[in-house]
C-alpha cells in the first residue's frame, strides 16, 4: 500500500507570496475569508487549516513594511470561530512560546480542543527578538540561545497541565451529587529555569488528550525539539533532494526518544500554479511571479541582503556595485521566518555575477533567486509530483499556501485532489472526527 498523503491549507500570509492586487483577492481580516478557505479545505478532505503568527508588524528601514498584506487576526479566536463552520477539519494555530505563559496557552488550546470536538493543533514557534518583545510585559527578556530551552520547558509545563485532568474526571451524577471523581483534579506543579508554577488547571482534558503539536524551526536545536516533542514539522524543504535530506535528518533523531518513524510527519510548505496544460501553467506561474515581485518589492528584498537603503536604484537596472553593509543592525525587523543571509558579501557577488551573465535586472534576479512556486503544471502533473515526493520520502504531505485569498485553493480542491484520491494516496472520507485520526496519531495516555 502506498504512503497516504497529508494535506493542509495555510491561510495566505503577510509576505509577498500573497498577491493582494489580484482582482479576485478578498479581505485578510473579515471572517468570511477564513470560513471560505476552511470550507474548501474541508470539502477537499484536508487534514487541517493552518494559521501563522507574527506579533509585531514588520518594519524595514525604520518604517512599517507596506508592500505586502499587513494585519491579521488573533489565532485562537479565529480558529474557535472556524470550529463553528467546519466539522472535521483540523485547526492549527501558530503560538509563540516566548511571549506567552503556559497556563493561559494550555487553557486556550484545551478550550479550542473541546469547542472543536478534538481538532486543535499547536504550531510551537520560538521568535524571541527584542523588537517583538516591545509589545509585551517582559520585553526582550530571552536570549536567542535560550529560545528552545524555553520552548521545551513551556511545552513540558503545558503537557503537565493538559494531563492534570484524567479523562474520566467528570462524573456529573445528579443523583449522588458527585460532579468530580476526585477533588484534586487539575493539580500541578512545574519548576525549572523558566517557570515556577503550581495550582489547579481549570480546563478538563480535551477530546484529543493534548492538542497535536507542530514545529516550524529549522536550526539544529529546532530539529531536535521537533524530534523530542512534535507530531508534525512544518518545513521549508519541499524539493526532492533537500526534502529527502531533511526528512532523513529528522526521522533519524526519533529512536533516541523511543519514537517510531511514522509518529512525526514532515510537511513542507508548498505553493502551486495550475493550468489546463503544463505550458499554460508555466505561463501563469511567470505572471504570478511578476505580481509577487513588483519593482518596489524587488528593491525591498534586495535591501534585505544589502542591508542598505537602495530606494535610489532602478529595479529594471543593474545590481548595485556597492557591497552589502555587514556592520550594523539589520534593516528588516519582525520577519519571523526569514533566515538572514549568512555571508551577504559573498551572496551579493554571486548575484552580481549571475545578473551580468544572464543579463538580469534587479527585478529579474529577485524573481529568479527567491521562492519559485513548488508545483507548476496541469493537475495530473501536480498530483504526480506531490505523490512522487511523498512516496520517495521527501515529505509526508504538504502545507499548501495559495497565493489568492480566499479562493486560491478551489482549483486544487477540484482538480488535483480527485486525482490523488484515484491513485489511492489521499482519503475520500475522513476516517474519524479528530485531527489525531486524520494524522494517524494515537490519543496520548
Amino acid at each position: 500500500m502506498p504512503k497516504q498523503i497529508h494535506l493542509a491549507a495555510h491561510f495566505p500570509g503577510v509576505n509577498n507570496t500573497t498577491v493582494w492586487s489580484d482582482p479576485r483577492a478578498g479581505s485578510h481580516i473579515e471572517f468570511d475569508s477564513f470560513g471560505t478557505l476552511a470550507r474548501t479545505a474541508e470539502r477537499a478532505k484536508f487534514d487541517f487549516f493552518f494559521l501563522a503568527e507574527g506579533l509585531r508588524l514588520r518594519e524595514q528601514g525604520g518604517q512599517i513594511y507596506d508592500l505586502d498584506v499587513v494585519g491579521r487576526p488573533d489565532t485562537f479566536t479565529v480558529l474557535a470561530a472556524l470550529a463553528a463552520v467546519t466539522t472535521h477539519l483540523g485547526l492549527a494555530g501558530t503560538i509563540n512560546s516566548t511571549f506567552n505563559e503556559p497556563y493561559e496557552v494550555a487553557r486556550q488550546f484545551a478550550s479550542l480542543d473541546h469547542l472543536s470536538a478534538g481538532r486543535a493543533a499547536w504550531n510551537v514557534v520560538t521568535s524571541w527578538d527584542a523588537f517583538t518583545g516591545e509589545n509585551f510585559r517582559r520585553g526582550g527578556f530571552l536570549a536567542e540561545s535560550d529560545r528552545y530551552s524555553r520552548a521545551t520547558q513551556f511545552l513540558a509545563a503545558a503537557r503537565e497541565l493538559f494531563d492534570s485532568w484524567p479523562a474520566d474526571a467528570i462524573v456529573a451524577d445528579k443523583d449522588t451529587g458527585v460532579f468530580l471523581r476526585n477533588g484534586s483534579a487539575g493539580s500541578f506543579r512545574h519548576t525549572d529555569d523558566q517557570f515556577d508554577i503550581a495550582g489547579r488547571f481549570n480546563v478538563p482534558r480535551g477530546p484529543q488528550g493534548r492538542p497535536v503539536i507542530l514545529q516550524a524551526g529549522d536550526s539544529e536545536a529546532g530539529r531536535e525539539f521537533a524530534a523530542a516533542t512534535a507530531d508534525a514539522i512544518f518545513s521549508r524543504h519541499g524539493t526532492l533532494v533537500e526534502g529527502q535530506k531533511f526528512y532523513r535528518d529528522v526521522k533519524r533523531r526519533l529512536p533516541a526518544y523511543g519514537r517510531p518513524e511514522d509518529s512525526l510527519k514532515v510537511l513542507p510548505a508548498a505553493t502551486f500554479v495550475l493550468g489546463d496544460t503544463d505550458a499554460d501553467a508555466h505561463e501563469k506561474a511567470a505572471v504570478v511571479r511578476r505580481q509577487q515581485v513588483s519593482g518596489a518589492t524587488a528593491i525591498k528584498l534586495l535591501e534585505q541582503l544589502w542591508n542598505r537603503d537602495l530606494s535610489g536604484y532602478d529595479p529594471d537596472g543593474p545590481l548595485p556595485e556597492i557591497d552589502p553593509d555587514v556592520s550594523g543592525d539589520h534593516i528588516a525587523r519582525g520577519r519571523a521566518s526569514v533566515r538572514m543571509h549568512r555571508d551577504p558579501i559573498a551572496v551579493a557577488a554571486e548575484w552580481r555575477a549571475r545578473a551580468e551573465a544572464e543579463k538580469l535586472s534587479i527585478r529579474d534576479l529577485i524573481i529568479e533567486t527567491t521562492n519559485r512556486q513548488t508545483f507548476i503544471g496541469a493537475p495530473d502533473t501536480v498530483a504526480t509530483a506531490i505523490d512522487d515526493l511523498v512516496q520517495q520520502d521527501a515529505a509526508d504531505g504538504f502545507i499548501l499556501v495559495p497565493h489568492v485569498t480566499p479562493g486560491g485553493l478551489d482549483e486544487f480542491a477540484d482538480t488535483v485532489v480527485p486525482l490523488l484520491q484515484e491513485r489511492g494516496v489521499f482519503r475520500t472520507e475522513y476516517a474519524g472526527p479528530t485531527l489525531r485520526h486524520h494524522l494517524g496519531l494515537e490519543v496520548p495516555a
Partner: protein
Amino acid sequence: MSTALHLAVALDGTGWHPASWRLPSARPAEVFSASYWADLVRLAEAGTLDFVTIEDALGLQTDRLDGPDERTDHVRGRLDAVLIAARVAPLTRHIGLVPTATVTHTEPFHIAKALATLDHVSRGRAGWRVQVSGRAHEAGHFGRRTLPVLDPAAPDREIVADLFAEARDHVEVVRRLWDSWEDDAEIRDAATGRFIDRDKLHHISFDGRYFSVKGPSITPRPPQGQPPVTALAHAEIPYAFAARSADVAYVTPTDAAQARKIVSQLPIPHVFADLVVFLEESEPAARDAHERLDTLDGTAYTSDAAIFTGTPAQLADLLQEWRAAGLTGFRLRPARLPDDLVGITGGLVPELRRRGAFRTAYEAATLRGLLGLSRPANRYAVAEEARVA
C-alpha cells in the same frame, strides 16, 4: 423610550446556584461542549437580549478565599470565555457577546487582538468584561508575582489600589491598540504597490508602571472601533476604575435608594444592576425552587448581588422601579440554566414588552448600536485633524 431598559444575561456553568447542575433540565456534562453554549446564546438571542456575558477566571472555581477547594459536589472547570464567544459568533446574528478576560497576569497586546478579532468574527458584536484577579492562587499559576490572600470583607487597600491601577493601564493599552489602525488604513493601492497607508498606523508607545507596549496592533481596528468595555464593581476603588475605563458598569445594589447613590458615582453611559434570578409562574413556586436547591446543597446560597425570587411580572416591577432610580439596564444571573433563562426570555421579556419597556426586535447591527453608543472617532485620526487645523 426613556423608560426602556437594557437586558443582559450572565452565563456561568449550569447557572449561578451551585446545586443547579443537579436539576433534571441541567446539562452538567455538556458545559465543556460547543453545542451547550450555542443553545444558550441562541435562546438569549431569541429573546432580543442586548448581550450575554460569559464568566471566566484564570483558576478553578472555589468556595474558599485562600485557594482552591477540594469539593467534588459542584461544577468545576470551564472553557476560555473569549473562545466560547468566538465559537458561538458565526451561529448568531444580533446578540452582543461579552466574554470575561482577566487583566491581571495577561498581556494587553494579546487581549486587544483577541477582542478585536471577536469583533471582526461577530461583525461588531464583541464586548469585554474586564476581570481583575486578586486571588493568590491565580498568581501562582503564572509565577511572576506573589499576592497575599485578600479578605474580601476588608482587603488590603494598597494591594487593591495597585491591582486596579494596573487594570486601568491594561484597558488604556487595549483601547489604544484598537485605535492603532485608522479605519481606512488599508488602501490596496495597485499603482504604488502599497497595501496600507502606513501613516494611518500608529505606535501607541505606552510606557507605564506595570508594562510598556509599543504597538501598533497586528489586528486592524475592530468594526465597532471600540468594543464596549464592561466591569463589575462593588466598592470605591472599582467604581473609580469603572468610571474611568468602562462603558458599562455592573453594580450590586439591594434597593432603589442604594442604586441611585451608586449611579451618581458612575458618570458613564450605562450602569446595570446585577441580580440573581429564580423565576417561576408563582411566587411560592419560585421560593420553593430556591429552597429546594439550597437544601440539595446543604447551605443557603449567598451572592454579592441581590437574589430575586418570584414571577416575571414581579421582576418587571422591580426592574422598572430601579430603572427609575437611574440604572439603565440589568445583568441577570440565571440561578438555573436553562430554566431561568427561559423564564427571562419567555416570561420577563414579553412582560416588559407589554409595558413598552423592552425592544420587540433588534434595532441595530452592533453591540454599541444596541447600547445606543455611537461609533467613536479614532483618537489618532482626531489628533491628526487637530494638527492640520
